[in-house]
């Protein structure tokens, strides 16, 4: 018997969705859609400007070197496997 689980799942999902949709309709969630477009822009603080320090640049350089090591490791895996892998 496979279907009781599936039917239950579909029925519960449908019932919850329908109930929420009717709630939204009743509460006017589909009105005033023009204003809704602007909601993210209301009262959004701008992020502070970026600032670079000497120490920060050194750290960034070090981690860039780490990333280069990652790239080099990737390349060496390919080269080694292709030349010695068989």
């Amino acid at each position, binding site marked *: 018997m496979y279907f009781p689980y599936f039917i239950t799942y579909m029925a519960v999902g449908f019932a919850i969705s329908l109930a929420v949709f009717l709630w939204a309709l009743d509460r006017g969630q589909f009105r005033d859609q023009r204003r809704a477009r602007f909601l993210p822009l*209301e009262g959004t603080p701008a*992020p*502070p400007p970026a600032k670079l320090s000497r120490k920060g640049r050194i750290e960034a350089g070090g981690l860039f070197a780490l990333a280069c090591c990652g790239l080099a490791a990737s390349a060496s895996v390919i080269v080694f*496997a292709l030349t010695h*892998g068989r």
Partner: protein
Amino acid sequence: MSTAEDSISHGNQTAKAFTLTSALWFAFATTFGMIAAGYLVAPDFMANIEYIQFGRMRPMHVNAVLFGFVTPGLLAAAFYYLPRLMKTRLYSEKLGVFSAVFWNLTVAAGMVGVSMGYSQGREYAELPWVVDILVVISFSLVIANFLLTIRRRTEPILYVSIWYAAAAVVLTACTYCLGNVIWKPDTGALAGIPDAILLWFYGHNVFGLLLSPMALGVAYYVLPIATRSPLYSHTLSLLGFWSLIVVYTHIGTHHLLQVPVPTWLKTISIVDSVAMVIPVMVFLINIWYTVKGKLGDVHADIGAKFVFTGTIYYFFVNIQGSMMALPDVQRITHYNNWVVAHAHIGVLGFAGVTALGGLYFILPRITGKPLHSTFLADLQYWLVLIGITGFGIVLTIVGLIQGQAWYNGETLYRTLPEIQPYYITRLSLGILIMTGAYIGLYNVIRSLYFNRGATS
């Protein structure tokens, strides 16, 4: 920060906790993935250590990505934008922080359990029963905070991101219980085909009803702000939301087209899979029209850049998904690495990249200081982008080789030498993604706790 912002933010402790959670588990999850990929190149690679053999490493990788990295990343953004869009405070920051701590303990318990061999052996649902319960409790804590915040809102209209975030956590809590057969603690499974049907409802819905809606919610919030443009159409966005809810819930059986599942169920899954084009294109048209002519602004904000890239991957993964549900296509693409490519493009390329975008977008806002290093975030962007694009290409090629071989009756072992170079390339690309994850973790920790930038 402004007084209005202060009255809402209340320290943003929950968003910070989930941000750190996501960055931390991204590093762990990619490490697990790397070890698993190592086994595919060299099967004896660390195979004598039982806790990290391939059969345990793969589910650890999958579950760590799903519940450790992507979901918390998207939740961090949601915990940031929910109060702002509803012009109220989060119902409880204490509950939020507790839920983040509980969430981490749950994921850690899952990893330890699977590594010790306590697995239910069902793909994507491997976590043992005790951890299943913890996962449901974790979601319940988030649901309570979300719904009670919605209840105390002062903004009457619910922006589409709120619909997506709330639906994602509520539906996933239900799907998780059902898909993990939580009422059978001894096995966590039914028997035979009914179990496969339930499992794939869960397996597909955990992406389609958790990661997708959460990520779409983030995109609908981040991109209008980054480009300082109102959403192209809120009505269209709600159409996309409701069509996603109706269509996505029934498509899991398209994973089972080649097994003896009732035909009517297969038909529903195929029709709904193709119908997914509707919510996907509704979203993409809406969001791309919103940022039209403002790609410079998207490029200037590292968070928005991640999120916009996620929308492009969303296009690819969904077009691919609709095609793959067609039986004639699936004869070649199923049971091979094509599906693995598809899963990586969806989970990392779309949802994961969007989660990273959400994190980088909110980080300067929740700390009140600039990101520790935009350069490092940019570096991570390129490492992840190159890695996931390479994954997509390499694994798709492997999938086609394997698919053609099976279709023509070729035996498995004869294809192995042919696909080995691709597995090696995949491993090397994985190193890029893992390196990006660790750079991201460093950047997040510095931005959260050791940030000397000027306070706004």
